[in-house]
């Protein structure tokens, strides 16, 4: 057991190193930060001097090693664009992204399960079929276009909701700025959360529907019905409960997508989170910010993976042989 955990941790660290290497080698091709940092009156001498100062004249392995050295100590360097420690900037931006991800996640899960159950119960009904078809429209358009169309409709034409930003935010403690406590903050969340959560909502809805249909066919449900249990009790206490295992697994896997698609949603809505920070960093070739973002994301995902794997082993001893051995 311990050997298994140690091996998995070792594998995870290897994965992180590789992701770091890949990410870092990408930066060499994204562009040159020097031109963004110097004005039009710069001379070639200035260019060379700044390059040396930033260590960009060093061979690639040296740069990579330096980056790792800092990253291990939690030091991601200083942003080229803002001239501030990257860790500080990311901490400042994280609440915006996490709140957005949370709200869109809740939106996706609650609405997804509700509509999934509905479409499964009323399998042949018109309403269910309309919902099924309409839900596909949402996943047949790119996220950015949905966002822009929502802004056009609800902000520009109807004027109901703000077109960009987080609205008024309030500080909780020293580091957490929240939009949950003000009216404008809540209003500002609506459009981005829908844009971001639409895809996941559709996914969960369809998954719940098909799992429900599967479960409703099982013998014990028939028995439950035969015993005279009310429909509601059958659907929710027995059927829905049994669909939850695959749904929870999928939700776990979708956390990654939410964080990734936050990049696009944040760009469209000028949402001041880490995704927007990352896009700005790409445009400015702010290497320290890009590197830190990608490393954090990989740590997060590799961590989730590791925890899930270890949990599986604890929960289901049968998996031990299979996962620990072959896989």
């Amino acid at each position: 057991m311990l050997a298994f955990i140690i091996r998995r941790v070792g594998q995870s660290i290897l994965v992180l190193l590789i992701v770091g290497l890949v990410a870092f080698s990408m930066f060499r091709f994204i562009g040159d930060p020097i031109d963004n940092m110097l004005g039009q009156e710069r001379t070639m001498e200035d260019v060379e001097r700044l390059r040396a100062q930033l260590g960009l004249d060093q061979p690639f392995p040296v740069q990579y090693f330096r980056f790792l050295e800092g990253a291990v100590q939690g030091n991601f360097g200083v942003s080229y664009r803002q001239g501030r420690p990257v860790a500080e900037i990311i901490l400042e931006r994280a609440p915006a992204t996490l709140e957005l991800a949370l709200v869109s996640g809740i939106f996706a899960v609650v609405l997804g399960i509700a509509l999934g159950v509905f479409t499964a119960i009323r399998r042949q009904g018109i309403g269910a079929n309309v919902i099924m078809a309409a839900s596909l429209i949402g996943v047949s358009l790119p996220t950015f276009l949905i966002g822009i169309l929502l802004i056009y409709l609800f902000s520009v034409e109807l004027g109901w909701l703000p077109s960009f930003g987080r609205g008024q935010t309030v500080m909780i403690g020293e580091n957490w700025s929240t939009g949950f406590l003000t009216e404008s903050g809540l209003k500002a969340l609506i459009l981005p959360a829908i844009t971001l959560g639409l895809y996941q909502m559709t996914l969960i809805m369809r998954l719940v529907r098909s799992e429900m249909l599967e479960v409703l066919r099982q013998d014990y449900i028939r028995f439950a019905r035969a015993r005279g249990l009310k429909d509601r009790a059958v659907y929710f206490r027995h059927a829905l409960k049994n669909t939850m295992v695959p749904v929870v697994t999928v939700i776990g896997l979708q956390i990654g997508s939410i964080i990734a698609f936050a990049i696009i949603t944040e760009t469209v809505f000028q949402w001041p989170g880490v995704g927007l920070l990352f896009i700005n960093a790409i445009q400015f070739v702010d290497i320290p910010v890009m590197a830190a973002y990608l490393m954090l994301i990989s740590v997060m995902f590799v961590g989730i993976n590791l925890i899930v794997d270890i949990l599986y082993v604890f929960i289901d001893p049968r998996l031990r042989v299979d996962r620990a051995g072959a896989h």
Partner: protein
Amino acid sequence: MAELRVETVERAVEKGNWQRFRESDFFYSFKRSPVAIVSFAVVCILVLSAVFAPLIAPTNPFDPASLNLMNGFTPPMEPNAFTGESFFMGTDDQGRDVFSTILYGMRISLFVGAAAVLFAMTLGIVLGLVSGYFGGWTETIIMRIADVQLTFPSILVAMLIFGIAKGFTPVEYRDQMAIWVLILAIGLSDWVQFARVVRGATLVEKRKEYVAAARLIGRSPWAIMVKHILPNALSPVLVIATISLALAIIAEATLSFLGVGAPPTQPSLGTLIRIGQGFLFSGEWWILFFPACTLLALALSVNLLGDWLRDALNPRLR
């Protein structure tokens, strides 16, 4: 005389196949589903018009010498104020006929989507078969990469690959390379699902007796995998491929929005939408509207088809 007979026999066999298909559950279910018929028809029309774009399109938008900038921003079905020319779906900012641009753009989108799915499918099937059949370290490595990639956002994977590939490509080939890089990027971010399904099927099949028998008579592992194991996994692979096609087309559009898509001189549907969204507020709605509708029609009908396919191929749901 003999030749004729052979032909008749062949025809009979063909007819037999067709007959069998027509009498199959699969075709029955297709006939009974208006959604499937309509979406299949829409996909066919769109694919055919993309394939035959050079014959259908009134102009060639990829030929810069044929463009007249003064035709720019002509509304649909209205004559241009300067040149008097009129266009069915209007023109964009470069004076390109929107209808022709959509036809040519759809070619690129479909090509990128189909090639990316084909690539992901091939890669996924090979890796899935190998890891399922051989097991051991091969499996550990492959499935470890798959795990990480499944949690790592596909759009980020695509951006990473795009960034790296761009760096290895000399500038003079970048425009032509962009499309191949897109295929590589989208394909590489999408192979895991295929690999998982195929691996699962392989694990089940390889324990069965006929595989052991095939092994005993000395058939090579590859022959066993391809001829005996793979066919068992084809239905789910087909379903995943259909849905992946829609996803790949949309992923291409998203990458275009992030500035890593097809070049503007040879725009895909995604690039057209990116360009068109800049004119949403200015009243030139047709530059966005028609490409967006085409993309929606394409992705939606492919999705609906995939949906139907999943139900049709899953006997338990019928």
